[in-house]
């Protein structure tokens, strides 16, 4: 490696890390403001313009807080866990290309780019798992166990969704995946790009990937590891000060990185939505002043489109968090194993049908699959057994038979059994 290569490599690392760490406060501020907006509140708006400096104040506050170590914690592992959750988040973005310039992005254009991301994201489970175990707190332990079970389950669905993208583009290298998507839409529409999400397999794959990426980053509605109503704060209950901040930063950086992966694999990466720029065509016909302008926009447009898509996905993250309720644990596991994985396998099979026999059999296959599913779901809905949910208070035979069933026991406290009142 020559010194100039080393210099470029260091510059690429600096760009990615600088972007991740620099955007972090902005994302946190954006999430708080957007959640407030969804809930008809105002949100943090005091510090700086629109409350933009609020995350800095939060960081300063966390920095100066006392660090409390649980008495019976495994000290070493307890201190290691935040670092282990921060490390994958910092390095996982290394293979994402931001633009066509190979000197500036990505950090390493390796042949196994997408597998590298999968490897790093699978390491992210350790931080949460070890934090939960070493805190010596039952809520933390339950949070950690939930997190690890969830991440293992959803990695399979995510792998299948990414396999669709890999098979469709025929490469594991992320720059090549973007290059494949630069072709004309469906091979016929010249001014549009063939983003993977515009194909049936890409659409299904993107939907699967989106669900899995919510679960992988432990975000609502899959935020069971830190469900505050059940587990206080889950694995981070015992953490304070900068160690808590490390988990927080790790989560938001993972959100940014995984949005970048989804953008690259399914949403055309750094490609513009339309394969036509007015300045470019003016420069080609007229020349003059438009030539440097076209060069400038040509250099700036790809990162701009990439960041715009990432920002849109981050907004969807917040949107989903503000809209959907948290899943129950068995629902989460059912969704992962019995919905996402079969759908992913089916999608992959139909994609191979397309690659081997052309688009018509594949399309017929999709229509058949949807029709079969509709028939099956209709049959199941017809045969559904009406289950009666009996609340604990009603299940106990504490009332005499003559009391009217319409009066709810909770409305009149005197009818409740002792266990319910004091338990």
């Amino acid at each position, binding site marked *: *490696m020559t010194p100039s290569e080393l210099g470029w490599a260091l510059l690429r690392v600096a760009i990615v890390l600088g972007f991740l760490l620099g955007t972090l406060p902005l994302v946190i501020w954006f999430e708080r403001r957007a959640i407030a907006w969804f809930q008809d509140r105002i949100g943090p708006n005091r510090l700086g313009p629109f409350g933009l400096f609020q995350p800095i104040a939060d960081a300063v506050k966390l920095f100066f807080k006392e660090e409390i170590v649980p008495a019976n914690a*495994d000290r070493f*592992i307890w201190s290691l866990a935040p670092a282990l959750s921060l490390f994958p988040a910092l390095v996982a973005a290394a293979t994402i290309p931001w633009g066509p310039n190979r000197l500036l992005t990505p950090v390493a254009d*390796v*042949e*196994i780019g997408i*597998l*590298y991301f*999968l*490897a790093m994201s*699978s*390491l992210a*489970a*350790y931080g949460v*798992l*070890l934090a*939960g*175990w070493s805190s010596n707190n039952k809520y933390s*332990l339950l949070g*950690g*166990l939930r997190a*690890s*079970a969830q*991440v*293992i389950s959803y*990695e399979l669905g995510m792998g299948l969704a990414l396999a669709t993208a890999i098979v469709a583009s025929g490469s*594991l290298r992320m720059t090549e995946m973007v290059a494949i998507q630069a072709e004309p839409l469906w091979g016929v529409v010249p001014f549009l790009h063939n983003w993977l999400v515009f194909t049936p397999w890409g659409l299904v794959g993107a939907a699967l990937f989106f669900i899995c990426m919510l679960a992988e980053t432990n975000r609502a509605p899959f935020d069971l590891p830190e469900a505050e109503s059940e587990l206080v704060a889950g694995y981070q209950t015992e953490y304070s000060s900068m160690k808590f901040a490390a988990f927080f930063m790790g989560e938001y950086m993972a959100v940014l990185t995984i949005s970048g992966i989804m953008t690259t694999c399914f949403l055309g990466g750094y490609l513009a939505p339309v394969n036509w720029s007015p300045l470019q065509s003016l420069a080609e016909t007229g020349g003059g002043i438009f030539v440097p302008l076209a060069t400038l926009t040509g250099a700036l447009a790809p990162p701009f489109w990439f960041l715009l898509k990432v920002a849109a996905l981050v907004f969807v993250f917040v949107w989903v968090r503000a809209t959907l309720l948290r899943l129950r644990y068995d629902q989460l596991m059912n969704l992962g194993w019995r919905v996402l994985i079969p759908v992913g396998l089916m999608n992959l099979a139909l994609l191979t049908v397309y690659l081997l026999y052309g688009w018509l059999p594949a399309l017929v296959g999709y229509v058949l699959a949807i029709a079969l599913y509709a028939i099956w779901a209709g049959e199941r809905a017809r045969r559904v057994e009406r289950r009666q949910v009996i609340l604990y208070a009603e299940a106990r035979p504490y009332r005499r038979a003559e009391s009217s069933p319409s009066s709810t026991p909770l409305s009149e406290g005197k009818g409740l059994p002792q266990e319910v009142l004091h338990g």
Partner: protein
Amino acid sequence: MAERLFFFLCALVAISTAVGMVASRNPVRSALLLVANFFCLAMLYFTLSAQFVGIIQIIVYAGAIMVLFLFVIMLLNLGSPEAQLQERELRRPLAWLLAIGLFLVLVSQVFLVVNAQPQPHGAAGTARMIGSAMFTQWSFPLLIVAVLLTVGVIGSILLARRRSA
């Protein structure tokens, strides 16, 4: 020069984590040291330009299997293994014998390979080459492995069901 330095660093960490994994009395720390060991092995694969094997090492062993191991250790809450060690005092000499024998076999293999001087093959480590080799030249062994894995999955489900039923 830098490559050799990197190799020795990785080898040192790999060996020390392996020894620590066996020596540690705390099962969670043992598992963690094994994870670090797998990570170093992956780094060694990368230096041999076997990118695919290295990244699969991280995804499968460090990322999935060891998470499951840790999961089970934490669920069972094994604590310190001293009590279990007491009753196995007799097996120790046998274990030492086996370990030393295996170590000697490995070391002899290492010297044989060093004498043979194989040349590292740059392109052979890519996912494309491994895939085409696996699905053309070695497709029959691959199918056998697939059948074996399926049998294993069905067997584990059967065992779990029998216990719960």
